[in-house]
């Protein structure tokens, strides 16, 4: 999964021609670590219909602030520059696939 930061956010997420699934995470977050391999499995199932990226909230506090991240992991689907839907907390693969598919 591509790591996005403050500098590449506009180009990689807001200006993407495909919907983008953004995983907000941090090193110290246990559930984020568990979600990582599961979301990568979901990506295999959904790609190439959507692009999957990760944002580290510690390194990018302004982005976390901008999107009101109050709990991680938070997964957001962006489409045409807007947040379409938000999912908070760990979820099994099927739930993530359904959540993303529903927002494509």
């Amino acid at each position, binding site marked *: 999964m591509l790591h996005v930061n403050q500098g590449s956010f506009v180009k990689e997420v807001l200006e993407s021609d495909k919907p983008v699934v953004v995983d907000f995470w941090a090193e110290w977050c*246990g559930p984020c670590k568990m979600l990582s391999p*599961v979301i990568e499995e979901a990506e295999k199932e959904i790609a190439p219909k959507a692009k999957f990226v990760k944002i580290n909230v510690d390194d990018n506090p302004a982005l976390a602030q901008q999107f009101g991240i*109050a*709990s*991680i992991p*938070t997964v957001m689907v962006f489409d045409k520059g807007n947040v379409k839907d938000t999912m908070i907390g760990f979820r*099994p693969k099927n739930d993530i696939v359904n959540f993303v598919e529903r927002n494509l």
Partner: protein
Amino acid sequence: MSERYDIAIVGSGPAGLEAAINAVIRNKKIILFGTENLSNKLIKAPKINNYLGSFDVTGKELMQKFKEHISAMNINIVEERINNIYAMGEYFALMVNEKMYEAKTVILAGGVEYTKPLKGEEEFLGKGVGYCATCDAPLYKGKKVAIIAYNKDAEKDANYVSELAGKLYYVPMYEGEYSLNSSIEIIKDKPIEITGDTSAEKLILKNEELNVDGVFVLKDSVSPGQLMPGLEMEGEHIKVNRNMETNIAGCFAAGDCVGKPYQFMKATGEGQIAALSAVSYLDKK
């Protein structure tokens, strides 16, 4: 990598024990989580007359028989409280704080004893309300946070959060001495409701209101839906079919946690079905 069990059973009441003995009879490698006393409900039962084969017994007597039964089968109880279970796909990760156990299948048999949520708690979950202070504390750097604490364990978390938060209120729901950093403000009042617009903004108590950016609710036990993200519930019970299968493949449930009536015989019967379902799930793999 840690040892991966065939079946992890969460709960040492009648449902969990019956599941354990049936899984062991079927030669599965199991791990059983619970308490030395098996179940508080079992101990409390004054007289039991509806348990076939054991007429006119007290809960304590029945507990003693259950204990003899499992020890004769070399089944041990691992005295740990599972905080979270993650369905990883191929396996389940069962967390006890930082420690992790792995199992191919899980049987949930934790009974029902969780604290009712506060008004607004579920609405703002993930939007200012959280159950793991140490997990989300860094997101509240310099902000106002309240901790509603149901047990002493929460004091450690509170001291950690107070080093990051701008202001920390501690609302203890238990009596005793509190060993807390001096910067923490203790509020002895009864929480009523969490309110806000798109995220939590206020904790309303009986006698006052606190303006906050976040509220952490730290309980003894959380509902199964919180314990295992993605688990489908039906009201306050876990949704299962006749084979005791939940909506998550490889996860089964039995006993009071799946619904009424709350009875020993029902719990054990369901524990047995759950174990046999888990066995056939494993054998098909």
